[in-house]
C-alpha cells in the first residue's frame, strides 16, 4: 500500500469539544518505547501518536475518536493512561 493518506484531512470534517489542558490520554514517561507503544504510531485511527526526535512516543489526543484501541494494545505494558473525556467533551459524532 503506497498511498500517502493525511489523517488530518479526514479529522478536519469532524466536530470536537476539546477539554483544553486536560488531555484524557497520557503516555507514561519512558526512555525507550515498548513495541506496543511504537505500534500505536500506525494503529491509532486518528494518528494521535508520533515519535519525537529523541525516539520517544508522544500523544496529542485532540483528534481522538475515543475508540480505545491504544488502551487495549498497551494493557499489558501499562504505557498508556486512558480515561473517557469529562462528560460532554471530546468527539461529537454528527452521524456516527
Amino acid at each position, binding site marked *: *500500500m503506497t498511498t500517502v493518506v493525511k*489523517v488530518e484531512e479526514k479529522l478536519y470534517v469532524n466536530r470536537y469539544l476539546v477539554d483544553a489542558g486536560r488531555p484524557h490520554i497520557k503516555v507514561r514517561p519512558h526512555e525507550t518505547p515498548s513495541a506496543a507503544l511504537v505500534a500505536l504510531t500506525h494503529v491509532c485511527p486518528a494518528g494521535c501518536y508520533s515519535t519525537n526526535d529523541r525516539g520517544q512516543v508522544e500523544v496529542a489526543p485532540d483528534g481522538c475518536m475515543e475508540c480505545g*484501541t491504544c*488502551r487495549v494494545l498497551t494493557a499489558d505494558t501499562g504505557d498508556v493512561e486512558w480515561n*473517557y473525556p469529562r*462528560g460532554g467533551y471530546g468527539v*461529537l*459524532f454528527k452521524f*456516527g
Partner: protein
Amino acid sequence: MNEERFDAIVVGAGPSGNAAAYTMAKAGLKVLQLERGEYPGSKNVQGAILYADALEKVIPDFREDAPLERHVIEQRIWMLDDTSYVGMHHRSENFNEERPNRYTIIRAQFDKWFSRRVREAGATLLCETTVTDLVRDLKGKVIGVRTDRGGAIVHADVVIMAEGVNGLVGQRAGLRPELKPEAVALAVKEMHFLPQEMIEQRFNLKGDEGVVIEIMGTVTDGMTGTAFIYTNKESLSVGIGCMVSDFAENETTPYALLEAFKNHPSVKPLLEGSEIKEYAAHLIPEGGYRHIPELFGDGWMIVGDAGHFVNAVHREGSNLAMTTGRVAAETVIRLKQLRSDFSKADLALYRKTLDESFVIKDMKKYKDIPNFLHGNAANVFGTYPRLINEAAQRWFRVDGVAKREKEREIIASFRKGRGLRGLIGDAFKLARAWR
C-alpha cells in the same frame, strides 16, 4: 441528587441502554440513565443496519416516527482481489413488505429518537455525565454509581451497565477483564454524501429501497476483517475493520487501508463525486462466546457491546444489544414484583433467560470461528479470494482453450496456491467451527 434513590440506573444511552431504560420506565419503574455524550448518539458509531425484530419487541410501533434511512431489499457479499470481485447477491421483491425486516440507519439520529421515546416513557436522562465508578455497600453489593459531576453519587437497587465496548466502569470496579487485542476489531468509517437520485441509479433502487454490501478479501491486506458499503437516503456509509492484534503487526494505518478500499476499481465508481462529512472509528467486540464476561452479580448486570454481544459472522450486534437490554430490564421488573434484593442469585434469571434465547444460542454456535480465523487470516482473506477470482476469470474468458483444460488449470491453481493438505485442512476446520 444525593437524596434521590432510583429503582435502576442505566449507564449509557446506546441501543442496549435505551432498550433497558425504556422497558423499565414503561413498566412504571423509577429509572435514571446516564450518558457521557452531549446528546445520546454523540459517542456512538455503527455501520449501520437496524434489525426490526429486536426493536419491535421493545417499541412495536417504531416505524411511525423512527428516523429510518432505507429498508434493505438486496444483500451483496463480495470477495475481492486487487482488481476484481466475485459476488453473491440476494435481491427480492419480498423485502418490499409492510413491515420490512432490515433498515439502514444513521446512529446519531436514531439514538436521539430512541432516547426521546425513553424520556417520554418516564425515565430521567442526564447527559454530559460520565460514570467514574460503582458504589458498593459493606458486603460488596453494587448500590449506585459515582459520576464526574463533582463526584456526585446516585443510589439505586440495581445498576445496568450499557456502557459500550470499552466497558471501563465494569473494568475499574474489577467486575470484568480488559479487552484482548485479538478479541476486538477496529473499524473506521466515512459518511459519503450524494444526491438521492444518484444513489438510486448507482444501486438500482427506487423509493426507500436499500442495498448493503459486505466485503472480504485482499482489501484487508491479509488481516482478519471486512469492509462494507451501506446505502442511506442521501449518503453511503463506507468502512473497513480488522482485528486490533492484526493491525498491531501490520505496518499499515487504518486510514490508508480505508483509502485503498475506496480506490478499488469495483468500489471507486460507486463513490465518485461524493462529499465526505464525517470520519469515525470504533471498536467492535468480535471475540465471540468465549470473551463474554461475567454478566451479573450482586446489584449489577452487563448488556450490549459491554457484554461482548456481537455475532461477527452475521454482522449482528445492535439487535443483540437491544435484546439483552430488554431481557435485563424484564428481569428487574420481575424481581421487583417478587421484592427481590437484586442479589447475584436472583439476577441469575437474566443469564438463564438469555441462555434460552437466540442470543446465547447464536453466540455458542460460532464460538470457534474466531480461533479458526486467528492464524489463518492470510489464507481466508488473501489466498482464497485471489484463487476464486482467478478461477472466475479463467472460466469466463473465451480464448480458444478447451473447457476441460480450463477445469484442470483451475484445480491445479488451487492445489498450487494452498496445497492439497491445506485445502482439506481448512475445509475440515471450518466445518467443525461452523457446526
